């Protein structure tokens, strides 16, 4: 493994550790609720009633599916672009070498 890929791998590991270590240290005592929801619960407890409802609210597992879809679309496009850019560079390099 060359130095460049080693640095890439270390960065990925650092990101994973950044989120995994707090989870492990926590030992299951926290609920990890979303901060967005924490605020709405706070405001509703203080007596605020929302005056408009979402036109469409996915129920249950449909919501996590749609979030996964969002990430999948993003990941697909990102992967496609990076793959094309890499392919372009490789083609150019072999072209240069042949010339």
């Amino acid at each position, binding site marked *: 493994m060359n130095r*460049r890929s080693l*640095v*890439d791998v270390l*960065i*990925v590991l*650092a*990101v994973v550790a*950044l*989120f995994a270590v*707090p*989870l492990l240290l*926590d030992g299951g*005592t*926290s*609920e*990890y*609720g*979303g*901060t*967005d*929801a*924490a*605020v*709405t619960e*706070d*405001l509703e407890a*203080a007596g*605020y009633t*929302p*005056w*408009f*409802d*979402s*036109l*469409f*609210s*996915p129920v249950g597992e449909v*919501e996590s599916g*749609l*979030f*996964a879809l*969002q*990430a999948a*679309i*993003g*990941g*697909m*496009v*990102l992967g*496609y*672009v*990076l793959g*094309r*850019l*890499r392919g*372009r*560079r490789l083609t150019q*390099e072999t072209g*240069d070498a042949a010339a």
Partner: protein
Amino acid sequence: MHIAEGFLPAPHAVGWTVAAAPFVVHGARAVVKEVRENPESTLLLGAAGAFTFVLSAIKLPSVTGSSSHPTGTGAGAILFRPPVMALLGTVVLLFQALLLAHGGLTTLGANAFAFAVVGPWAGYGGYRLTRGLGGGLLPGVFVGMVLADLATYVTTSLQLALAFPDASTGLAGAAAKFLGVFAVTQIPLAIGEGLLGVLLFRVLTVNARPELERLGLLSPAPVTASGGAA
């Protein structure tokens, strides 16, 4: 950072929509102009939008025992300047408001202002400052991505404080309360986002060098330097 549907009083909802709209319109024109004048930018624009799409979909745990999501808006702001992200960020928010009941149409203006306007500008500012002080591309990207993320959540906290000042401690008290919910949780996420940004730009510096040079992020390398960077 999504203020939920119907959770901003109508005057605030209207006010933030009016405030965000010119940025989004300007951003849409910036995207069209970029694609028209530099068609080869389309790929990277897609990457910038996709990066925000992925990161804002992923909820991550934080040291505070709650979870939140990164924003990913810094990358596009650094590549193409912030106006472009005003449009791309708002598209992401619209997707989430319509399909995921995350955020909302009445709060789209406020959320766009935080996520697609303030965040990208703060990130871009942090990037430029780092470069101006002599920092390299990757340190600049790290600072920019972290700041874009944090500034978004700080803005959301202030928007909520403006709408719901505390009965006894007023605006400052409410701001402290909302910052307590959002900002602290966000710190590790912002750092993680900064690292992912560095990873993305490490890939781009190798594979999209001509684009980065044209966009002014890298200065053209001497002709003999091929091979070493790969």
